[in-house]
Structure formats: C-alpha cells, structure tokens
C-alpha cells in the first residue's frame, strides 16, 4: 500500500524524523484556515499517488492568504496523470541550502534492506544512478543485525556528505531504517532530504510503501487505505476479498492463482483478444466468492465476454461450478461465458454445469481453446453492438 506524502510525513514524525510542519485539507476553506495557522509563505501540495506533481502545477508557494486560496482552489480537483486531487497538504515553506536523496528499499534480489544516499537529490534519482553511479552510495544491511552507526558513517562518507553533516545524516538514516522496520515498509524514500541554512537535516518529501500482508498488526496504517484512489471495480473487489486489477480490454477474466491468471491474460492476448481485468479468485474459492467475482467482472460495462480458467488444486471445480450457477441466478449475465475446468473435482464440476444448461455458457477443454473461443465471442458481440 502506497501512502500519500503527508501520511508518510506523519509516519516519519512518529519516528522522530524531522519534517516540516503542515496540515491536510480537503476543501478550500480548510486549506486557507490551515495556511493562516501555519503562516506565510507556505506551500500548497497536491496529495496524489503519482510523481511529477510539481511539473503538473500541483505544488505552489503561497505568499499570502489570497494566494493560498487561489492555489487550493486550482489544485483541489485537479487531474494529475489520471489521478484526481482530493486533498492538499499545506506546509510551512522550507529554506533549502542543499538537496540530498535517501531511501531504504526491501531488496528482493539481495534479500536484505538496501540503504541508498546521494548528495544529488531533488532530481530524478534514476538518472543520477545511471549517469553517475558513484554519486549514489549503497549499502545492504543484515536484517538480523540492523542498522548500526558505522553503516550511517560509511554511507555518508561514500556519498561525499559535508564533514559537519556526517553525523546528522547518519542519524537520519538510522531513524529511517527504524521506521522502515517498525512500520514494515517495502520502501521509504526521501527526495529531497534537505539541509537548511542552519545545517538542519529534514525530510521534505516522503514516499512510503507498506507491506499489505503486515497491515493486520498496524491498524493505524491499515486505516489509511484510500478507497478513492481505487477504481470502482477494484474497490468493490477489495471489499469482497478478491484480487482484481482493471485493464483496458473487453474480455472479463477469472482464474485461480495469480500465475495462472497472468498466463490466461497472455494466452487471450496471443489469441488476439484484450483482457478487461485480472481477477484471482484465490485458493479454495467457495461458491459465494465466485458469485462476487462475477458481479465485480460484470460491473465493468466494457466486458463483452467472460473467460473462467480454473485448474483446481486447493480450489474444487464443483464449488466453482456451483458458484457460476448461483451467479447466473443472482446476476443474470447477458454476455457469453467460456468455462474451462480442470483439476480437483473437475468431472463433478463439468457435470453440474452440463445439468444446469446455463444460457450462453460454452465449455472448453484446454486453455488455448478457451482463449480462442472467448476472443471470437467478444468479437461477435462487438460486431453485433
């Protein structure tokens, strides 16, 4: 789960990481009240889960109340690369003497947290990493040992940090690491990490990604999930405990297991079709989960045909068949379905489907045949419409 900048900063503050003070606002009135309280000049920052806010005009300095109101009015509701701005963060303006970069990422390849530090912050760090790799100091930390003071010194010296800042920058990295571990983050990134004219080190931005699997033991973080950032179908699927990702095509897809569903998308694409979604009904799907899944898939009006691709292991094909039969009773779909059932209890599942004789439900024996059939049905539906 990605956090908005201000949520990240509030998380940082809980770990004693210095951040500029600020307040979130979702209306112009709230924004102006917040700006009055913080004082001028202040910064009005769009809160969306996408980069490039500054270039899009989503970050503006207000030198007085009139400007704060004007900026809040123009930024709230603004569209930034497809994301609507529902909240702004009003922040005290910072004096900046230098901009650094710091991050900690859960490095899957190395199987250890990777801490990175650079003096060249405030810019596209990928570009720095590519053009001047020496400028980006990197260090893996043994997860059982944790971040030690010498790690901070080593990174700070390697990054060429000014002598007087070796200690405060090291301390900042230690705090970021503590937050990374305590909050079970997959990423903590600060760009820029600023140095003020008084030589204080502060996080001017915050990019935090949390591990969804750990949210059960972080109730405060779990409550931050922003349903408005999710698409309507994705929100509905999330509420029903299904893994759904909306795509651009017109063929609804349901399968069990992420790998098989991804493979199904690929096979449908190879057959010339365009998948409308990724939907993993999960292991051990029961009939009611299938009903929910059909509802979610069909709530996308683009869907012209649906493919069920099931290879049962922990999932039992008879349960899937029962779910589909129930879904036809409840949802009454008008688009054609192609169903391929293999694996645990497949014979019983196919028998149930044959007996139910559902309207416009086709069966297929292989994944490729199923894909070809559903692509053809979607194309015909498109031609008819």
């Amino acid at each position, binding site marked *: 789960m990605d956090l908005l900048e201000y949520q990240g900063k509030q998380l940082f503050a809980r770990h004693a990481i210095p951040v500029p003070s600020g307040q979130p606002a979702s209306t112009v009135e709230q924004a102006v009240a917040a700006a009055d309280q913080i004082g001028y000049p202040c910064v009005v920052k769009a809160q969306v889960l996408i980069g490039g806010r500054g270039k899009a005009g989503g970050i503006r300095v207000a030198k007085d109340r009139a400007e704060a109101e004007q900026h809040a009015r123009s930024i709230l509701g603004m569209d930034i690369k497809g994301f609507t701005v529902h909240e702004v963060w009003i922040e005290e303006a910072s004096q900046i003497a230098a901009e650094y970069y710091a991050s900690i990422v859960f490095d899957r390849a190395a199987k250890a947290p990777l801490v990175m530090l650079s003096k060249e912050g405030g810019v596209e760090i990928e570009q720095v990493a590519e053009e001047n790799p020496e400028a980006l100091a990197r260090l893996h930390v043994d997860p059982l040992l944790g971040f030690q003071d010498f790690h901070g010194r080593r990174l700070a010296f390697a990054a060429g940090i000014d002598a007087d800042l070796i200690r405060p920058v090291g301390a900042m990295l230690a705090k970021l690491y503590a937050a990374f*571990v305590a909050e079970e983050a997959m990423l903590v990134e600060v760009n820029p990490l600023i140095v003020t004219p008084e030589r204080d080190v502060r996080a001017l931005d915050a990019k935090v990604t949390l591990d969804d699997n750990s949210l*059960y033991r972080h109730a405060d973080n779990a409550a931050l999930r922003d349903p408005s950032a999710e698409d309507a179908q994705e929100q509905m699927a999330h509420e029903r405990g299904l893994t759904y990702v909306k795509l651009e095509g017109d063929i609804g897809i349901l399968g069990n297991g*992420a*790998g098989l569903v991804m493979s199904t998308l690929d096979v449908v694409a190879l057959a010339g079709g365009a998948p409308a979604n990724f939907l993993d009904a999960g292991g051990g799907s029961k009939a009611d989960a299938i009903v929910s899944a059909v509802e979610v898939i069909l709530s996308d009006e683009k869907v012209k045909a649906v493919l069920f691709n099931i290879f049962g*292991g922990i999932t039992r094909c008879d349960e899937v068949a029962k779910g589909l039969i129930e879904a036809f009773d409840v949802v009454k779909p008008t688009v054609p379905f192609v169903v391929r059932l293999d*694996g645990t209890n497949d014979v019983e599942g196919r028998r149930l489907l044959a007996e139910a004789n559902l309207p416009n439900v086709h069966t297929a024996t292989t994944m*490729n045949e199923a894909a070809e059939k559903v692509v053809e049905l979607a194309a015909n539906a498109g031609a008819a419409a």
Partner: protein
Amino acid sequence: MSVLVGTDTRLVVTGITGREGTFHALNNRRYGTQVVAGVTPGKGGQDVEGIPVFNTLAEAVEEQGANTAMIFVPPRFAADSILEAEEAGISLIIAITEGIPAHDELRVYTHLKRNPNVTLVGPNCPGILSPGKASVGIIPASFFKQGNVGVVSRSGTLTYQIGNELAQRGFGNSSIVGIGGDPVPGSSFIDIIALFEADPETELIVMSGEIGGSAEEEAAEYIAANVTKPVVAYIAGFTAPPGKTMGHAGAIVSGTAGTARAKQEALEAKGVRVGRTPTETAELAMQILGNR
C-alpha cells in the same frame, strides 16, 4: 530418484487440526506420504485419523522421527512455526501459508541461511510432489505420474497447468517443486535447478516464472554456467501493466526490470528456450525429449 521429498520423507504437519490442514495432511497420507505427526499447541495427545498430534515440533521429531515439516498455520503464526521447525532439527521445511508479512520472511530467511542443514521451500507455495513416492502440500497429485521431467515453479496453479500439459503428452515427473511467489522465497530457482541437475532421474528441467524480481535472470546465468541438462522455461505476465500488483507479492513490475520480456530475453540469451504459452512450453519439452 526425485528431489527433496520421497520414500524417506517423514512428515510433520503444523496446523494439522485446522480444516485445510486436516484435509491436505490426509490427502498427502492417502497418496503414500509417511505423515508421522501433527503439531497444534494445546492439542498434544489427540490424533487426526491416527496421526498423533503433539504440542511442539521438538516432540514430533523426538517421538516420531519427523524430518520434514509442512507449515499450514495462518500467516501470523507462520514465521514462528518455521523457526520452531528449524530449531527442532527438521531438515526440510515446506511452507504452504500465503500472506506472511515480508519482514517476517526476511528475518526467517536470513536466520535459516546460516544453518547449512536446513532447506526452506516456500512460503506461499503449493508444496512438492515426487510422483509415485510422496506428496507434501496441495498439488493435485492424481494428474501426474512418475517420469523424468523436473518442474520448478513460482506459481501453484500454473505448475498444475504445465504439469498437466506434459502429462497429456505422455511425460511424467521426477519431482514438481513449487517455490512460491513471495518476495523472499526460501529456495530459489537456482537451488532447485541444482538439485535436478544432480538427480539421475531428471532428464529435462522445466522452470515456470513470472514477472517481478530477478530470480529468472539469475537462474539464466546459473544455467549457462552450471547446468548440462536441457532447460525449458515459461514466463507469465507479458500483458501485465507496469506498476500493478498482480496478486502475488512477487509479481510486481516497476520500470523495465523484472518484466516478462526482460526475463525471456535473459533466458534465451543463455540458450534456454522459452514457450509463449504453457502448451508451447510442453511442446518444446516434447521436441527435446522426443515423443513418448
């Protein structure tokens, strides 16, 4: 021969008294696996259809000589259960549990790597099947028969799909190993491929990967340098949009690293043939081993 599980396997199932734990423990026993114990704290002294239940893994090892543990407890207890199994002297831990927090996995992985006598497979994996010998996990074993193709896969259902395509073409398997789709798998493609390379029964290796991470790219390097047996690969996720999570914690694409295309290119550059679909992958295996 086979890898990891076989006729010597003496299995203890943690979480055996749960609904799924019972179902799959009995399924594994029905297949022929020696299921010698179960563990559920507080239920020691009971039994599950004749399988004795203990309070601790140490007792299961001591009383029943368990050498392999299947972890079937809910995510919040799984890291603890894996560590308990290692401490009890279990040499192979197969973690089926899905949804373990990534930082838990990282700590467990780092600790276990320091013990050369223990192997962890999973978590979030379907287990291991050595057809005709033993099945540990949730793989629908009836679809597979004994043979000479070793399969290693990050995804459960995709493993069944590919295994089934091979079976339809007359191929059996030495072993089928699900390594799981989580960010920190206990065993990598490389670990399992090395076992298949050393296994006399295995003549061809099929690896099934997916987007995210760099395990396939690393495997490509390893295969080129160390593997003499033919390897055929499949990668899922060519149509996955960047930046979206596709269910598995592992299946996240950011930028170009870890894309299906990048993995395919890395493998093909090292001489590993990559099928575009599970069907094509099975056909490639057939071309290499001949029709039988």
